C-alpha cells in the first residue's frame, strides 16, 4: 500500500520515534530555556561553594572555649581581631604574600624563554623534548616531588655529595625560605609555560622579523613587541601561579622544615592542631578575600580581556 515505507531504513524509524518522544518531553517552545538548563550544573556547583562559604563565615564569628572544646554560641569579631593583630598571623601572611610574589616573578622569568623557545624553535625534536620535560613532572604529584628534593638537596643528598667531591662541607640547602620558594617555582613552572605558550603562538613570527627590519635589536624587539603582546598570557599565568602559591600547603610543609609556614599551614594548624575551627575559618575567609581582591585588581588594571575573555583585546 505504501511502497515508499519499505525503503525507509529501520534506523531512521527508530530515530523518528526517539525524536517524537524527545519532542513530547521537551517541546520546542521550551528550547529557549535549553541554554539555561545547561548552566544548571555550574550554578549548582557555585551554589554549593557559596553555601560552604556561608558556613565558614558562621564559624569564623565564634571562638573556641577550651574548657569544653565547643564553639561559642554568640557571635564575635574576636577571631578577626586576632588574625589582624597577632604577630604570628601577620608574619605568616606577609611571608605567603611576599613568597607568592617572588615565586610568580621568578616563575614568569623562567617560563617566558622556555615557552618562547618551545613555540618558536624550528626543530621539532627540541619542541618535543621541551614538552615532555614540561609534562613529566605533572604525572609526579607535588608531595612526591617535594620528597624528591629532600633526597637531592639533603645533607647527604646528591648536591651536597657533589660539593663534597670538591671539598665543600655539607651546607644546609633545605628547610629554609629559599628552599620553599625554589620548590614552589619548580612546581609552578609547567602551569606558567602552559598558560604562556598559547599566547606566544598567537604572536606571528613575522612581527619580530618586521621589528628587526625596522631597526630593533632583539632586546628592543622583545621589549616592544613580544612582551606587550604576551601580556594576556603573562597576566593569566601570573594569576594562576600567584594564587596557587599563596594557597599552597605541601611545599612549605615539606621543604620549610616546620619554620616556614604559609597561610594554608596556619589554617591547617587551627583546624587540626589546636582544634580552633573558628580561627581556621577566619583565616580561610581572609585568604579567600585577599585572593579575590588581588584577582579583581588585576582585572581592573589589565581588563578581563587579558585572559582572552570578551572580544576586544584591550
Amino acid at each position, binding site marked *: 500500500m505504501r511502497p515508499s515505507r519499505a525503503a525507509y531504513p529501520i534506523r531512521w524509524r527508530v530515530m523518528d520515534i526517539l525524536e517524537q518522544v524527545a519532542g513530547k518531553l521537551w517541546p520546542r517552545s521550551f528550547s529557549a530555556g535549553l541554554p539555561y538548563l545547561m548552566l544548571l550544573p555550574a550554578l549548582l556547583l557555585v551554589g554549593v561553594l557559596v553555601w560552604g562559604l556561608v558556613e565558614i563565615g558562621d564559624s569564623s564569628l565564634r571562638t573556641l572555649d577550651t574548657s569544653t572544646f565547643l564553639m561559642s554560641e554568640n557571635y564575635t569579631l574576636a577571631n578577626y581581631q586576632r588574625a589582624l593583630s597577632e604577630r604570628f598571623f601577620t608574619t605568616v601572611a606577609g611571608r605567603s604574600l611576599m613568597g607568592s610574589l617572588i615565586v610568580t616573578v621568578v616563575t614568569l622569568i623562567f617560563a617566558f624563554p622556555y615557552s618562547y623557545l618551545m613555540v618558536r624553535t624550528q626543530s621539532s625534536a627540541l619542541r618535543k623534548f621541551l614538552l615532555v620535560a614540561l609534562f613529566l613532572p605533572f604525572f609526579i604529584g607535588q608531595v612526591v616531588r617535594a620528597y624528591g628534593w629532600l633526597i637531592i638537596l639533603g645533607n647527604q643528598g646528591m648536591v651536597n655529595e657533589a660539593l663534597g667531591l670538591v671539598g665543600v662541607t655539607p651546607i644546609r640547602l633545605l628547610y629554609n625560605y629559599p628552599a620553599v620558594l625554589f620548590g614552589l617555582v619548580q612546581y609552578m613552572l609547567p602551569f606558567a609555560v602552559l598558560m604562556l605558550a598559547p599566547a606566544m603562538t598567537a604572536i606571528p613570527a*613575522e612581527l619580530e622579523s618586521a621589528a628587526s627590519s625596522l*631597526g630593533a635589536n632583539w632586546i628592543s624587539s622583545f621589549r616592544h613587541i613580544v612582551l606587550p603582546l604576551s601580556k594576556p598570557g603573562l597576566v593569566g599565568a601570573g594569576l594562576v601561579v600567584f594564587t596557587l602559591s599563596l594557597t599552597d600547603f605541601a611545599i612549605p610543609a615539606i621543604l620549610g622544615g616546620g619554620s616556614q609556614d604559609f597561610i594554608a599551614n596556619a589554617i591547617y594548624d587551627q583546624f587540626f592542631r589546636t582544634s580552633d575551627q573558628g580561627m581556621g575559618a577566619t583565616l580561610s575567609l581572609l585568604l579567600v578575600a585577599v585572593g579575590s581582591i588581588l584577582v579583581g585588581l588585576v582585572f581592573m588594571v589589565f581588563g578581563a580581556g587579558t585572559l582572552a575573555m570578551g572580544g576586544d*583585546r584591550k
Partner: protein
Amino acid sequence: MSAAPAGVPQQETAAAAAVSVKRVSKVFGDVHAVREASFDLPKGRFLTILGPSGSGKTTLLRMIAGFDAPTEGDIYIGGQPVKAVPPHKRAIGMVFQKLALFPHMTAAENVAFPLKMRRHDARTIPEKVERYLELVRLGGYGKRRIDELSGGQQQRVAIARALVFEPDLLLLDEPLAALDRKLREEMQLEFRRIQKELGVTTINVTHDQREALVVSDEIVVMDGGEIQQMAQPVHTYRTPANAFVANFIGVTNFLEGSVVETSNEAIALSVGGMRVKGVAGGTAKVPAQGELAAGALRAEQIRIAPTVQGFSGLANVVSGEVRDAIFEGERIVYEVVVPELGGAVLRVFDHDAESHQQFGPGDSVALGWNAKDMYIFKK
C-alpha cells in the same frame, strides 16, 4: 641558463648599484630554493621579482633583508657586502605579505616605531610620522588602532612604516596579494607614485604579471629558484628570453615542430606538416636544422578575419574554425582550431568588438601573423 641579464654591464656597476646579488644560492635540506641568482639594481629603480608559487621569490627577498643567510654567494647593498650585517643594522624597509603591523600600537605608533628604534630625535618624530601618513593619504588617521583601519588603509600604514626612516632599499613581499582586484590596482599605482616621489630603490615580489608590468622599471622572472630573465617590462613582454618567460607573461600560443630552415635570425618550423616562419627568440643558441623547437606567439599578435583578404603582407596565414568565443568585456578571446597545423588550437584576441565583425562557434575564419612576432625557442 641565461641568469646574467643581457645588456647590463658587470663589475663596474657593482659599486654604484644599490643592490647587487652575486651567485646567491639557498638550500633548505634537499630543497634548492634559490640557485645562483645574480643581478644588479641601480639606485632609485623599481624592480619586480615575478614568478610562480615556490619559485624562490620570498627566499631571495629574505636574504636581501638579512633574515636568512645565503648558502652560497654574496649580497651587496650600496656597494658593501652585508653578510655580517644583521637585519636591524641594514637600512631596509620591508612590507610583509601579511603586513606585520603591530596590533598593540596605533597607526602613528607603528610608523614611529622605526624612528624610535633608530634613535631619531624624539622632537622630530611626530612631525615626520604625520608627513609620511599624509604621503600615503592617511593624514589624521594616526590615532586609530590597527584593527580600526580597512585593509587598504592598513596596507598604507605598512608602507609608511617601511619608508619613514628613509631606507636605502624598500622590499615588498606581495603586500597586495590579499586585496581585491580594484583596490590592488589602485595600490599598485600608489606604490608607483610614492616610489617615484621618494626615489627609493625598491624590490617588489609578486606573482601577478600585470602588477609587474604596471609598476616596474625592471622585472626579474624566476622559476625553480633560477632567474630566467631580467629586463624592462616591455622587453620582458615583447622579447621573452625563453619559452618559460613567454608562457608566464601574457596569453601565448605554442606551436611545436622541427626546424626545416634557418637563415640568420629567420627560422622555419614544420608544424603538422605546414611551414611556419618565425625568428630566433631569447639569447640561447639558435636551434639547428632538424632539431625540435617551439614557436611562441602572443594571442594579440594574430589577426583574425572572415577570409584571407588583406592578409597578403603576413608571412603566416592559416584558416580554421572557431571552437569557442569568450567575452571578457574589453575584448573577446577566440579559440580557433587549425587543421593545417595538425589540429592545434590558437587563442586569438579581438579588441573593440563593436567595429569588427564578430564570430561564433563553428564559423570559418582566417588567421595571420608576422614572422617577427613568433619567437622560436629550442626545446
